[in-house]
């Protein structure tokens, strides 16, 4: 038999190499990643583990800032060093071995200490998508955080000590269009059908359908008809309560065909309609979260510098107030359901066409705004994407790390509240902060030489920190002891865990997809526990 020779569509090398991740963030996410430039300060094991999982998926470029010389301990826990690296600059050695992972990634090594760059060439940091720092002293943390806050560059501060680790993300503002929620709310407009939909739904006659057609009526139609029937005896209200929804279910059951013995015939579409009563009868509404977004000052007081997100939010506001009559543009997505191909394709095209039409209205509004502001144009595809995800838009308003270190009232009462809980994850936060304080006072990690002697000293640091917080419950002494046992040791698997997580968050920040941690993550590898705090 002659082999068929189908025309194989061109699949580029790059598409093949990145196939498994493109299924998660799409070609546009990949493009954003390839435009990203990460700066890492200090190529510790944690630092290189982070870079590894950003270089592999193909970030545009990485810059390592590190003035340290490779030690034996570095080689022991850092995979991106060789024995021959000993005595050489840690940044350039790790960079060399990291870049082997992906030839498409550009890399640079800078030998000056971060403190010096901050002092002599602060503009250096302006070109990065994200700056990540590990093992930097208390003072530098604050100077760097303040500078990056001022120039509006995302900053991730990371720690790994013994079984403990943490990272803190500092961003002034982060907006996400594609949050990829696990359960997308369906948007069917059964309560407010647009004319084409109403016409389509009204054309159905459930009772007149023969058995075969009956089994193919989409559940959307069944639900709509049931509500209409119910409304006749209920002043055209929309069913809201559980009791009313049960009445809808009873009506649906009446619709089901019966066999010669009067028993209901199993019809999957009617089963689906019954199941959908609880989820699909939610009235169409403007979520409070989205209302807050489109009426926030960033959306109202646009400037030439406003980001496309806020310009689109402003256009969205215009739509909601005018054509949308208080509602967001239609999502235009139809869930799969038991029905014939004809019904499904028709219904799908009705929803899609309406969504396209509404997105076009928003696009025209965007164009108007862009014209008024004289700013860069926004593509129609971007606006469509925005409208498609209008229900799930997300804004993270960040806070400055310097505020957290200053322990103002809001921060201390927040910490105090968590310290009163039996869960010890906030205790770990205090310990990591105290160990940092210890390091800056004693020029070594607590327990670096020997554990017992440093317990009292570390306790003093904890007490100092807690007295600033003015809360009574102390982290138990055994946690202080455990921190001294660690002696500042960096354990590879702990850094590898955090490295994976931090790389992941950096990718979320660069691609502007999925919600990143807001804003502090604590990991305890001893108890396999994690927690997220928002400072």
């Amino acid at each position: 038999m002659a082999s068929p020779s189908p025309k194989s569509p061109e699949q580029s090398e790059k598409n093949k190499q990145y196939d498994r991740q493109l299924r998660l963030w799409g070609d546009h996410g990949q493009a954003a990643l390839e435009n990203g430039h990460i700066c890492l300060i200090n190529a510790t094991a944690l630092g290189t583990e982070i870079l590894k999982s950003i270089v592999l998926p193909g970030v545009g470029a990485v810059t390592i800032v590190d003035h340290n010389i490779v030690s034996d301990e570095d080689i022991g826990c850092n995979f991106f060093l060789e024995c021959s690296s000993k005595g050489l600059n840690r940044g350039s050695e790790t960079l060399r071995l990291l870049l082997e992972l992906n030839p498409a990634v550009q890399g640079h090594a800078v030998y000056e200490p971060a403190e010096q760059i901050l002092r002599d060439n602060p503009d250096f940091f302006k070109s990065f998508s994200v700056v990540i720092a590990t093992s930097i002293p208390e003072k530098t943390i604050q100077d760097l955080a303040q500078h990056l806050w001022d120039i509006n560059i995302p900053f991730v501060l990371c720690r790994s000590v013994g079984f403990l680790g943490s990272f803190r993300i500092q961003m002034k503002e982060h907006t996400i269009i594609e949050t990829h929620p696990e359960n997308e709310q369906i948007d069917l407009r059964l309560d407010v059908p647009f004319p084409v939909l109403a016409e389509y739904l009204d054309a159905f006659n459930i009772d007149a359908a023969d058995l075969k057609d009956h089994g193919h009526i989409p559940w959307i139609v069944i639900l709509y008809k049931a509500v209409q029937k119910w409304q006749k005896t209920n002043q055209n209200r929309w069913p809201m309560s559980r009791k009313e929804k049960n009445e809808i279910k009873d009506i649906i059951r009446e619709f089901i065909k019966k066999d010669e013995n009067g028993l209901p015939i199993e019809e999957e579409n009617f089963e689906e309609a019954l199941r959908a009563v609880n989820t699909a009868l939610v009235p169409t509404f403007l979520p409070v979260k989205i209302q807050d977004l489109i009426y926030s000052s960033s959306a109202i007081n646009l400037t030439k510098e406003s980001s496309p997100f806020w310009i689109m939010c402003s256009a969205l506001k215009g739509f909601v107030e005018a054509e949308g009559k208080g509602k967001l543009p239609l999502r235009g997505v139809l869930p799969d359901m038991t029905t014939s191909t004809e019904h499904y394709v028709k219904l799908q095209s009705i929803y899609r066409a309406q969504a396209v039409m509404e997105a076009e209205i928003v696009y025209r509004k965007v164009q108007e705004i862009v014209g008024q502001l004289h700013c860069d144009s926004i593509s129609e595809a971007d606006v469509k994407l925005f409208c498609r995800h209008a229900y799930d838009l997300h804004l993270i308003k960040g806070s400055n790390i310097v505020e957290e270190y200053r322990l103002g009232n809001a921060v201390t009462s927040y910490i105090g509240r968590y310290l009163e809980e039996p869960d010890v994850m906030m205790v770990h936060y205090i310990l990591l902060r105290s160990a940092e304080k210890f390091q800056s006072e004693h020029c070594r990690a607590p327990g670096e030489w020997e554990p017992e002697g440093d317990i009292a000293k570390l306790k003093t640091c904890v007490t100092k920190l807690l007295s600033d917080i003015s809360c009574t419950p102390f982290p138990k002494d055994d946690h202080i002891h455990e921190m001294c046992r660690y002696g500042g040791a960096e354990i590879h698997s702990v850094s590898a865990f955090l490295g994976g997580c931090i790389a992941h968050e950096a990718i979320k920040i660069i691609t502007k997809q999925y919600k990143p941690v807001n804003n502090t993550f604590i990991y305890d590898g001893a108890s396999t526990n994690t927690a997220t705090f928002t400072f």
Partner: protein
Amino acid sequence: MIKLFSLKQQKKDEEGSARAGGSQKKASAAQLRITKDLNELNLPKTCNTEFPDPDDLLNFKLIICPDEGFYRGGRFVFSFKVGPNYPHEPPKVKCETAVYHPNIDLEGNVCLNILREDWKPVLTVNSIVYGLQYLFLEPNPEDPLNKEAADELQSNRRLFEQHVQRAMRGGYVGSNYFERCLK
């Protein structure tokens, strides 16, 4: 929690060292489960199984001879292939007898929910047997695999019955030839 390793523990035995009674191959979880399923198989009187190799419990045939309904008098053979991921995955079942049936196509594919989308590990071979038997008593025109047969069953029961009979006696229905499968 136990302390698995004391430092005193010597290196583990080197590779290949056999311990007493150790070299008999162990039965897989799928094997243990199918043995259980089959030992408890409770066949309706219209059904029978055939094991070409009684030592191979993973591959066998089910014969259904309906005693009522459209297919009365016919003899229909299904092949069962139980894979290593049983019962996480259902057995693969095919109809080896050509049959004019709304839910069975001419390649022997069977449209039965528990063979695909509704399979659960708690179900057994018995559940499938009953499901298949039911297909012959109550062919379901709403989930058609042989669309022609399904349409006919809905529009002209009489004609459908004639066609089923013709197919079982051996002959053409439309352009498709069916081997005789009457008992």
